[in-house]
């Protein structure tokens, strides 16, 4: 199958571009987009870093061969910046129409004339000519080897996801199994779920529930990542786990240490159980199992082609890496967890909560919100990872409390948010706020995350990671 070519923009970038292209005068307008380039298992993605509007009559003027053109000065300035920052250059203009659009012969002639020179100037980054109608987009992607490929789609990522293609295609009526839920988001929504690639980082108590829910919803491709095996204490909160998975008769308390070691060696990797859970729920779901640590470069790379990432791992290193991927590659993500906090002095329960924290193209990052404390990262780096994970007890061998019902609240809320996002159902903006459920008091709190203006991960400053795609290394442990 040939790779797909996709442009990803944030909702804020899209609104700015759309308002410029379609002010209601039925005329043509122009702009340029600078984008990081990601080569992923799902094709080439262009991650918009900046949208530069061409001023009518100054930068976008009557054409000598076509109706309008970007001036040489504008092209020069923007392409110089693309070359300097290692970004793709995307020229944009609008056409009439609504649900179908394509490049005209004049557009193509203009590309033939100008794009080889631009490819030389950019020195290794793609050049793209794109055209938008009100609800469709098309374009040509020119690669450094001079090959040309159609721009397959534009993805607008915000509270909800908007998928823009050259032509709105009818989707076949969904399979009978899904008719009840498709009454909520339609056959098109069901098809968008089927086409989605979703990563679950961490297949523990919450991760196993996520896998079950995502597969039953009809997600077409799940990538599950974990480097651990099933233990007997996992069984009460793992949907679909069996005693055999944990080698429970060998690993349970009271067995000699050497017997428990043998049992643990033969216990089933969590990703294998997750794959079984997914296939049982939805036999058409393709599952990629990665028995590894997301903080390793080769594992982290598997996230870059995802449409959505669920982060249900305990370590701060995992947060660091997934946070970087989300902003560097423009992928919506969510961190989720649950906690039963115990006072060290007397063992009293001080707090019980489930939490869901979305982050990605339109929000502040986990750094900005004190969710990757440098001291905890440092603790993990020196090998006391367990202590870093479960700091409310001093003894790293004392396991954290974990209850399936509390985990389920977080998993269900997060998958609901994903479902609304991916199917494009419009709604209020709860999807960008942190959700915290407190079962003891019955309260639910929504917290607005902050965004540090100078943040090196998610900020608008030139040095930030946002939208850099393959042009920036990830903060993995093997770097």
């Amino acid at each position: 199958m040939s790779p797909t070519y996709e442009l990803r923009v944030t909702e804020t970038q899209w609104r700015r571009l759309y308002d410029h292209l379609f002010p209601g005068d039925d005329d043509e307008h122009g702009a340029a987009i600078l984008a990081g380039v990601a080569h992923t298992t799902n094709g080439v993605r262009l991650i918009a870093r900046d949208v530069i509007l061409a001023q009518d009559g100054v930068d976008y003027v009557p054409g000598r061969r076509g109706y309008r053109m970007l001036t040489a000065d504008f092209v020069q300035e923007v392409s110089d910046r693309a070359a300097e920052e290692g970004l793709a250059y995307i020229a944009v203009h609008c056409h009439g129409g609504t649900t179908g659009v394509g490049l005209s012969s004049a557009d193509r002639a203009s590309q033939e004339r100008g794009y080889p020179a631009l490819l030389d100037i950019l020195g290794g980054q793609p050049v793209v000519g794109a055209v938008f109608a009100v609800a469709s987009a098309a374009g040509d992607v020119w690669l450094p080897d001079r090959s040309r490929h159609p721009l397959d789609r534009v993805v607008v990522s915000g509270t909800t996801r908007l998928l823009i293609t050259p032509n709105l295609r009818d989707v076949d009526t969904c399979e009978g199994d899904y008719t009840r839920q498709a009454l909520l988001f339609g056959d098109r929504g069901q098809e968008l779920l089927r086409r989605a690639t979703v990563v679950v980082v961490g297949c523990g108590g919450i991760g196993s529930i996520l896998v079950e829910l995502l597969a039953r919803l009809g997600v077409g491709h799940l990538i599950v990542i974990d480097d651990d095996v099933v233990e007997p204490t996992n069984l009460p909160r793992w949907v679909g786990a069996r005693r055999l998975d944990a080698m429970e008769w060998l690993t349970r308390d009271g067995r000699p240490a050497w017997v428990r070691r043998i049992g643990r060696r033969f216990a089933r990797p969590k990703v294998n159980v997750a794959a079984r859970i997914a296939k049982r729920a939805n036999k058409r779901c393709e599952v990629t199992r990665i028995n590894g640590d997301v903080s390793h470069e080769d594992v982290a790379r598997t996230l870059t082609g995802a449409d959505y990432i669920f982060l249900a791992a305990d370590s701060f290193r995992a947060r660091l890496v997934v946070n970087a991927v989300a902003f560097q590659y423009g992928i919506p993500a969510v961190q989720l967890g649950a906690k039963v906090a115990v006072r060290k002095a007397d063992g009293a329960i001080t707090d019980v909560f489930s939490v869901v924290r979305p982050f990605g193209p339109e929000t502040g990052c986990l750094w900005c919100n004190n969710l990757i404390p440098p001291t905890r990262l440092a603790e993990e780096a020196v090998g006391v990872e367990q202590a870093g994970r479960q700091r409310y007890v001093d003894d790293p061998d004392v396991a954290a409390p974990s209850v399936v019902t509390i985990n389920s609240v977080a998993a269900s809320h997060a998958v609901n948010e994903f479902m609304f996002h991916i199917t494009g159902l419009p709604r209020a903006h709860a999807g960008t706020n942190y959700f915290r459920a407190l079962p003891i008091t019955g309260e639910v709190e929504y917290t607005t995350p902050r965004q540090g203006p100078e943040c090196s991960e998610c900020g608008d400053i030139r040095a930030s990671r946002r939208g850099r795609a393959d042009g920036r290394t990830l903060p993995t442990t093997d770097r």
Partner: protein
Amino acid sequence: MRPFNITVNKKPVPMTDHRVTGLQVKEAAIAAGVDIELDFQLSIRRPNGRLEVVGDDDKIAIVEKSEFRAVAPDDNS
């Protein structure tokens, strides 16, 4: 300046300045015996009832009975 009380996790915390950083709020709360640590995530409850995260270096205006939440950054999955 006249002392006044804010709350952090529903417990009273005495303050003297009306313009403080997020870190100063957490330091004052710890000094007042609130069971939190300095790397906790702090949020302030706005008049509309919504919580907003406050960074350690963010300067905020506080008044008598300003309400804060401070929660551990870690959780389990």
